[in-house]
């Protein structure tokens, strides 16, 4: 089974040949791969080299934590890949930016108000979590819309707080 695997723009043609052989860009490796105690922790012996990684599904990519380094990885089988490119570009692209809470916490202050025009980098919300104040800034200029929270409110991780249009 052939896959196109991408790590920060770098593409790898990975072919899973059988249970013990994998080729990367046509270079063949002997592989012994298994999950450790049913956890998303994997041990891989690749040509004898012993590696262990924590692999889990992120928002829309796989996240691989290997030797203290974190790699966001996109895995697509060739068909998918072709399909995508024919459509062209990411679908996620859209005029609206939704500010989501990066962590659970308490909304301490909202220095902006609905309908307000704001600049890139401007602080939208002050969120307190684990006793630290975190300033959530706007990734771009725009207009504040759909303000969904009030100061003093607790929010869940990834909860939508407001939108920028």
């Amino acid at each position, binding site marked *: 089974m052939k896959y196109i*695997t991408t*790590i920060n723009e770098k593409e790898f043609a990975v072919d899973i040949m059988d249970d013990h052989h994998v080729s990367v860009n046509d270079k063949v490796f002997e592989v012994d791969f298994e999950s450790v105690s049913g956890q998303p922790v994997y041990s891989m012996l690749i040509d004898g080299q012993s590696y262990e990684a924590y692999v889990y599904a992120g928002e829309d990519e796989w996240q691989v934590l290997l030797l203290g380094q974190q790699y966001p990885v996109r895995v697509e089988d060739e068909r998918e890949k072709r399909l995508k490119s024919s459509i062209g570009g990411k679908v996620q692209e859209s005029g609206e930016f939704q500010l989501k809470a990066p*962590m659970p*916490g308490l909304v301490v202050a909202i220095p902006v108000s609905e309908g307000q025009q704001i600049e890139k980098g401007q602080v939208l919300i002050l969120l307190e979590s684990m006793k*630290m104040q975190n300033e959530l800034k706007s990734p771009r200029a725009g207009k504040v819309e759909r303000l969904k929270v009030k100061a003093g409110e607790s929010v869940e991780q990834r909860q939508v707080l407001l939108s920028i249009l």
Partner: protein
Amino acid sequence: MFNKILVANRGEIAVRILRACRELGIPSVAVYSEADRSALHVRYADEAYLLGPAPSRESYLRADKIIEIARKCGADAIHPGYGFLAEREAFAAACLEAGITFIGPKPSAIASMGDKMTARNTVMAAGVPVVPGTEGTGAMRDEELLAEAPKIGFPLLIKATAGGGGKGMREVTSLAEMPALLASARREAESSFGDGNVYLEKLVEGARHIEIQILADQHGNAIHLGERDCSIQRRHQKLIEEAPSPFMDRELRQRMGTVAVRAAQSVDYVNAGTIEFLVDKDKNFYFLEMNTRLQVEHPVTEVVTGVDIVAEQIRIARGRQLSYKQEDLVIRGHAIECRVNAEDPYNGFTPSTGRITHSLLPTGPGVRVDTGVYPGFEITPYYDPLIAKLIVWGETRGQAILRMRRALEEYRIVGVRTNIPFHQTMMDSHRFMGGQYDTRFVEERFAMPEPGDERETHHSEIAAVFATLVAHHATERAAQFVMRNERDTSNWKWVGRWERLHR
């Protein structure tokens, strides 16, 4: 001995203190919030009582409830740990009134050292050098502070009068940005300590944060246990501490030690305490503040001196003489501590919460782990992000660094992001290995590795194979699942992942 000791804290430090109680054969009492019912300190204590809802204000800061519980269960001593009520004069006083021994200094000492300005004046009077800053004129309004600032000169720091641990602290490089920073500092101070007062202090550049551990008994004996170098900080939060300091020499250690003891004596200090200094590149040192409690980083001192500081605190509180004289103390080898926080170093150190599903502690020669968590435990957003302290000992600093690398590589935590990669990068950094760092190092000269170099390219290839194999299996298993092959229980696992992948 005490009949029973109540530990008014949570997390790793509560566990640390419970261990000391057990080793001294003293029954122990834990208190906990609704979020902590299955926390390790509740599991390890002899008794445990509920304080209230998760927020600290309604649980671990409820002095009244804690004292009431101590009364009810017959605890005749309370150990406050660090944070929460540890440096509240009122709490120490309330314990005494209730006839309960507060394992720490007298309320008066907490008071005079707790208010940074009083502290400065007291130690200055005792001939201890201090960092230039706003004098002890109590609470100042913004206008006054803005007026004072230029006289001190920029860069300078805004610090919370009641503060500590970098909370309510802001750095100011120009008068222009000062008003905004004053506001946010006061806000954070208010929410952290219920006191919005702040003061100004000159920022000593190229400074190292070096602190001296002291022990004093009720009979006038006071000794120091040498220094800890805590210069590796981020946003004024300590991340790595070591003892001895690579920057230190015997002569300076002696001078600072003597000054530290003098500072403690200036407030008739009793029990364990720490004097924090800033030391500039010319080895001039300035008194920063005194922490009138057990420090997070006390283990590095324990490891090199062999002194059990918590056990000693309890003996002192019982009115015993110190078990050591200054000349008894020998520093053996080198110790380093890494604070493992639930923070994502690849994401601006944002706090990470969730259930720890899998965890493997580093063990073996020269490794100590102080932690309050275990697999299955949930990291909540209510308390600070410290989940473990990893401490190593080596005959030399070099050996300690190599051992720390080994231990960090062994450490596995699945379920929350941690700053372990940060520590690994630090242990590989030449400046850290050379001991060439100051308190600004992390913010100004340090960066997480970028992909791209030799080693990296090879590893990203490996990462690609990992991800592809996992994705491949996930798809295959999911397919099988659709075929209702329910005998194979491992499907369930895979399906779980499959679903996560597509949520």
